[in-house]
Each structure stands twice: as C-alpha cells, then as structure tokens.
C-alpha cells in the first residue's frame, strides 16, 4: 500500500447537460499524506466541490481511481459508499445545515444514531466533541439561538463526533466575518495538529488558505502549483 492516505489516479468527471458533455475534471492525479491539511483554491465553477465530493464518496468519477485509506471508492455502489462515509468522513459545509428543531447536542448526536453504542457512551462522545469546539456550555441551545460562528462549530462537532480519519470542508468560512473565520480556521488547525485529522478545505479566501500546510489550484480541469505553505505563513496569518 502506498504511504498516501488519499490517492487519485487519472480521475475524470464529466457532467451531461441536454446531451452536452461538460468535462469538469480531466485526468487528475493527487496524493494526500496522512495528517496533511490541503487547501483547494480555484475560480468558481472550476470543480473544487466536485473534487471534494469524489474524495468524500458522495459522487463517483466518470473514469479513474479514487482510493482513500484501503477503500477503492470508484468500485463501490451507493449503499457501500454511504456506509463508508458514516465511519470515515466528516463533512463541513458553508451553510452549516443543522436541524433547527434539535439542540446543539442533539445535532452533534445525529451521526451516532447510525452506530450501536450505549447512551452513556453516546453522551460522552457528544460532550467531548462539543468541548473540542468550545461549545459545551451551549449544548442545549437550538441553532436559532446561536451565532453563525457557533453554528459552524456545532457542525464541526457533528463532523468529528464519529472520529473520522478525514475531514472535508467546502468553504467553511464563506458565510462568516473575518474574526469568526479566524476562530473556525484555528479550530481546524487544532483538529489537524492535535487530533491528527487529514483535512481538505475548499476556500476562496487567501487568508484562509494560509492556514493549510499545502495549497492546490484547480483550473480548467487540472490541478496546478502544488506549493508548500510554510508553517511560518500560518503563524503570520493567525497573529
């Protein structure tokens, strides 16, 4: 097995609109090491979300191979992919997508409904996840009683409560002000360094990009400029 946690080989993704081929990804190769923090940038419509969805098993490539850990996603059917996602990926979206009628703690607990475990353990996991994102004192609040930044923290707690190896974030700060964005990005850094999560984050914001260890640019169906972001850049951006 290759040392890379994620391995994409010659991945093509083509959409069809009224019989018209819309090629989005044209033969991508990508390796992501365990514990990496990859920032994915690129113009709107360049296929960043599409790439993230392929890695997260939400979609399958038109051709090519997507391996995450020891799972070959391109060979799995929808049922298998869904089961795989529940154990291996945590998603964070721009719009949080919390269930408005459930409290913060209940929202975080949702993914655990798919697992067989005692209610005590479930509770413990929820509290731990909320502690990590610093919202343990708001656990009985409903989404409409929380600020945007707090909602995104709850969404992050929901993404990590099953302890997945991979976290995929699609513009997680796209709807937040600069200060709150920094807090959320700092939290992602903590998950990456302290909890050793492999993270891939899509963003438009150059300041947000500085938080990653590695930056990729997607344009016209290909990945460009695989430059290393220095640890110093992270320090500079967060100071």
């Amino acid at each position, binding site marked *: 097995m290759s040392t890379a946690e994620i391995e994409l080989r010659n991945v093509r993704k083509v959409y069809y609109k009224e019989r018209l081929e819309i090629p989005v990804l044209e033969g991508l190769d990508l390796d992501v090491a365990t514990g990496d923090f990859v920032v994915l940038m690129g113009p709107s419509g360049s296929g960043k979300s599409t790439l993230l969805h392929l890695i997260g098993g939400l979609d399958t490539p038109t051709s090519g191979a997507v391996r995450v850990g020891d799972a070959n996603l391109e060979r799995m059917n929808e049922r298998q992919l869904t089961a795989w*996602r529940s154990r291996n990926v945590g998603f964070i979206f721009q719009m949080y997508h919390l269930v408005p009628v459930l409290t913060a703690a209940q929202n975080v607990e949702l993914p655990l409904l798919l697992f067989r475990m005692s209610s005590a353990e479930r509770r413990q996991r929820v509290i731990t996840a909320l502690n990590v994102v610093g919202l343990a004192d708001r656990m009985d609040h409903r989404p409409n009683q929380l600020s945007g930044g707090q909602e995104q923290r709850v969404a992050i707690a929901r993404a990590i409560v099953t302890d997945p190896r991979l976290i995929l974030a699609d513009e997680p700060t796209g709807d937040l002000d600069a200060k709150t964005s920094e807090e959320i990005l700092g939290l992602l850094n903590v998950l990456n360094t302290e909890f050793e999560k492999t993270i891939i984050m899509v963003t438009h914001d150059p300041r947000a990009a500085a938080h990653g260890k590695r930056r990729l640019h997607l344009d016209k169906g290909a990945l460009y400029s695989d430059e290393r972001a220095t640890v110093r850049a992270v320090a500079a951006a967060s100071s």
Partner: protein
Amino acid sequence: MTITYVLMQNLKRNPLRAALTATAFSLPMAVFVAAISLVVLLANVAASAAKELRLGVHQKTSLTNLLPEGMRRKIEALDPQKEHLHAVCGMRWFGGRVPDTQNTLTSLAADADTFPIVYSDVQMTEEETARWLSEKTACVVGFATAEQYGWKPGDRLTLESTVPPYLTLEFKIVKVMQNAERSSVFYFRRDYLEDSLKAAGFDDPRCNIFWIKCKTAEGLRTLQQRIDAAFANSPEETKSEDENAFAANFTQAAGNLPGLMQAMAVVVVFIIALVAGNTMMMSFRERIRELAVFKAIGFQSSRIFAIVLAESTMLALIGALAGVIPASLFLLLVPIRNLRMGPISSFEVSPLAIVVSIAIALLVGLVAGLWPAYQAHRLRTVDALRKVA
C-alpha cells in the same frame, strides 16, 4: 435520542401547519367512528332479523287497514302439514302511552299462545313463558323503554291508548327484552285487549298484521307466494314481506344511508390524502438540504425513505387519535339511547369502527408520504447542496 424523537421534533417545525393537517384527519375520523358504528348496528339488526325467518302479512294498501282475526286460521290452513310454517301470531296496534307523558310507545297486542314461538329471539325463559301464558295482564318491554321509566320485571304499570276508544289498561311486566332491535317495543296479550274492547262496547278482534315464523328461508318464499295468491282479489288482499324487506324499506326511507356514507367517505379520504400529501411535500421541500446532509453523514437512502414516510404516518396517527378518542368518549357518555329511535337505542361505539378509522388514517398517511419519501430516496446530496451556492 432516538430517530422517533427526531421525527416528533420535526412535526413541531411548523406547528400550525402540522395542527391543521392533523385536524384534517381528526374531524373526518371522528365522524367515521360514529358513522361506521351506525352501519354496524344496522347490519346487526338486519342479520338478527334474517335469522328469525319471519314473514309479515298485512292488508295490501296499508298497515292501518285491519285484517279479520280469522285470517290466522286461513293462513294456517295453507300449510296444514306445517311443512314450512311454524306458527302465526296476530298483532294489533295499541298506541299506548304512560299517563301524563307525550311519547306514544310502540305497544302491540300479540296472540298469547304463539307469541313466545314467533318471537323466540326475545328468549323468554320457561318461567317467563309460563307467567305470560297464565297472567292476562302480562307484558314484555324493551330495555331502553324499561330504563326510561324505571320498570323492572314484576312491576305493575298503566298505559292509556291514543287511539279510539282510548282504553286505559293495567299491565304486569314479565320480562325486559335485551334485543337491540326491540329495545323500545312493548308487547302484551291480544286476548286482554279484545276482552277490554268488548267490555267498552267495541267488539273488534281484528289485526294490523300477522307475523308468521317460518322454518326455512325457502319455506318463507313459498308461503309468501301462497298467501298473497290465496287472498288476491278478495277484500282482504294481502301483502307479505319478510323482516329483511322491512329493514330495507326502513333504510331506503332513510335514503340508502350506508351507501351514501360510503361514497362520502371515499371523497373525504381522497381530500385528506391531498391535504396530507401537500403538507408532506411542502415539509420535504423545506428540508431538502437537511436530508441531503443526513445522507452525507451516512444515513442510507432506504432509511431516509422510511423517515419521511414515518413522519407522514405519525402525523396521520396523531390526527386520527385526536378525532377518534374524543368522538368515542362523546358517544359513550352522551345517552344516545334516550333518543328512543328504535334500533338506535342500542347504539354503541363499535371497536371495529375505531380500528377501521385508525387504519384508514394510517393508510392515507402512508399514501400521502409515498411521493415525498420517494423524492427523498432518490435525492442526491451533491445536487441538493449545489442549489445553495
């Protein structure tokens, strides 16, 4: 937390809409319980009447035109071997009422010797039959009437007739009848009426109707033809009808109630299905992205399908219970038997009605949830989320 809890919380998302939709279930289900109970009752009455195999013979044009007493012999002579015929019981309308009250009781004078045979469904014990035969003032009374006036077996009472010559007679109760279809009927001996009429100067031993207990349904048809043929073109031309025909005439007079109710039920069920389906579709559309996230998290499509369906069914169940429970309590607590409308006196909430109403609601809830559940099943997370950006 369980998925059921999540479902219940979901119903609170738009409480007014959920409440209105639930009401769309509860009101019709409340009516269903009452209506189905009524149909069950009518069916029971018809069924028990059929079992009794009774044929009623009355004057062709009207029940109010009296037939001579000798008719009984003539009818009996039509089947001397008693091949089809069991017994014949002549009856005369008395139209009695309790003094100082307004309601005329369905009070009938019946042949003393054959009444216990022809009305075997009254189920008189040997002792009661003996008392009926030995005491001239004996009477049997339906339970609803007995309850209304506080009468018990052994009690003495007085009725005054509302038809000429306005006799006032004394009676002694030998039995309270428990039959649903005879809950407010009063029977007494015809020889007592005859003698009392004679004493008042009216020698008129005629009858309104002769009830014939038959041995078989086939025998009933045979006798029916024989009797009407025998008296055709005579001053006593008759019309014979079995009790079922009587019940059918009664329901026809009420405008084919069960059929009408069925048609209305179908329309109503269709309307609630539309209302509930619309609600479920709206609530699904509002939550497309949320359900997409459920799928991203790892909920299988089949599970999402079940969740949407369960929510719709739950709403239907809550609505149905909110209608059926109060309706049943109302029907149980309000003394409907006091209406004294014949068979209605034995009205009770049929367990079948409750089961059927709730089953209909569940079915409608299920059907209403099918389309949104199917939409949720085939929903693709990537497409649903893209619509945000």
